[in-house]
């Protein structure tokens, strides 16, 4: 009885639900924007890493290693609290999206690179022998094949990005977690936090299950 009043209080739920939905909307916007920007950044980085001139390849590798090493929370705090000292003052949304994109781009670049490197050399040679230029070769022959390979790891990465949006609450971003903590303070009851957790799970579980299914299918085909 007590435990339901504390953690799953229906009256609190009803009162704070609109706040949580507003937070969810911001979480989804932030997640989607960062995922898309991270994909574009990652593809460009992968191309530079694979086909750039030597100095560019080196710089890209440096970038990828650094942004895979730095804790996202640290990066986020630097972007939001340290950059203003350089005169660069970003909104909470821009800071969060920036930090998420920089890190997601580094991971995505490695995923794309692995996908492209998994395409047999003969595919590159046949395209070149037919006279396709490097851009067409990528767009028509290599990437359509690589995409099938990278969809499961890219989905995994996207799940991580959505989960990491919760960190944005430390830069005053009114995302799902921030709204939940505020609702909890206002109602003096932790129910909103539990509801927020359920909402996160409800959105991400299907994606997690989808990745497992895709991985099983790809593994079966390879056999």
């Amino acid at each position, binding site marked *: 009885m007590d435990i339901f009043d504390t953690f799953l209080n229906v009256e609190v739920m009803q009162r704070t639900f609109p706040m949580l939905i507003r937070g969810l909307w911001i979480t989804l916007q932030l997640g989607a924007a960062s995922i898309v920007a991270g994909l574009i950044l990652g593809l460009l980085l992968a191309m530079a890493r694979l086909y750039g001139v030597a100095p560019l390849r080196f710089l890209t590798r440096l970038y990828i290693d650094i942004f895979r090493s730095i804790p996202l929370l640290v990066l986020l705090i630097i972007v939001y609290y340290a950059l203003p000292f350089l005169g660069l003052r970003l909104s909470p949304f821009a800071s969060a999206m920036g930090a998420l994109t920089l890190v997601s781009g580094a991971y995505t670049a490695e995923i794309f690179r692995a996908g492209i490197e998994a395409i047999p050399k003969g595919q590159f040679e*046949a395209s070149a*022998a*037919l*006279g396709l*230029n490097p851009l067409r070769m990528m767009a*028509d*022959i290599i990437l359509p*094949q690589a995409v099938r390979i990278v969809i499961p790891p890219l989905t995994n990465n996207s799940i991580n990005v959505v989960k990491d949006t919760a960190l944005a609450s430390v830069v005053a971003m009114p995302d799902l977690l921030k709204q939940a903590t505020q609702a909890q303070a206002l109602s003096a009851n932790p129910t909103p936090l539990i509801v927020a957790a359920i909402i996160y799970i409800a959105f991400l579980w299907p994606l997690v299950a989808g990745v497992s299914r895709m991985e099983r299918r790809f593994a079966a085909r390879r056999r």
Partner: protein
Amino acid sequence: MTAFVSIRNLRKSFGTFEVLKGIDLDVAKGEVVCIIGPSGSGKSTLIRCINRLEPFSAGSEIRVDGTAVTSGRALAKVRAEVGMVFQSFNLFPHLTVRENIMIAPRRVRGTSRADAARQADRLLERVGIASQADKYPEHLSGGQQQRVAIARALAMEPQVMLFDEPTSALDPEMVGEVLDVMRDLARTGVTMIVVTHEMGFASQVADRVIFMDAGQIIEQGPPAQVLSNPQEPRTRNFLGAVLNH
């Protein structure tokens, strides 16, 4: 004889190992040249240099129809004129048979979709697999896949066709169907340079047979001469090993 493909002092090394040790070779328009030799003799590397799938050493020169095979625009021009068929087919698995043939005319020449499709169907007819146009390569036999690969190369209306051991990856019963297509092609006057182990094909179809060993051309001439009456001991040894087993 004016050379359509002309190779001068072609050298190529993998690390410290020199695979091609200064090859000179002229191929006339319409000529069918078969290159034979033991594995590791450099024959595949030689034809892969003609469209620069393999970069070669400075000081070497290859010209196709007068254009030096270098890089950039000149290389693009050469590659559009030179068709290539690989040992492992290298069809594009995510495209149907028809799309495999359409892709280069559409993307390189800017041919319309309808024209490219018509041309693809005509070529599939010619290589005898018109009924497979809408299938994906993985659903075709090896022999059929290689015939699609030939049609794909022909779609660019190349002046020269390079064949890199086109039947070596095939089951024995499928070798004939691919060689038949190549034989027909030779009759149409396309210049062909064929790396092969098929001595029967070489003796019947080639205008000239070249025997290579250790990165050099050891002997060349009409098939009757090179295959039946070789002058060099190394050619005799190789033919003896290939024919008497």
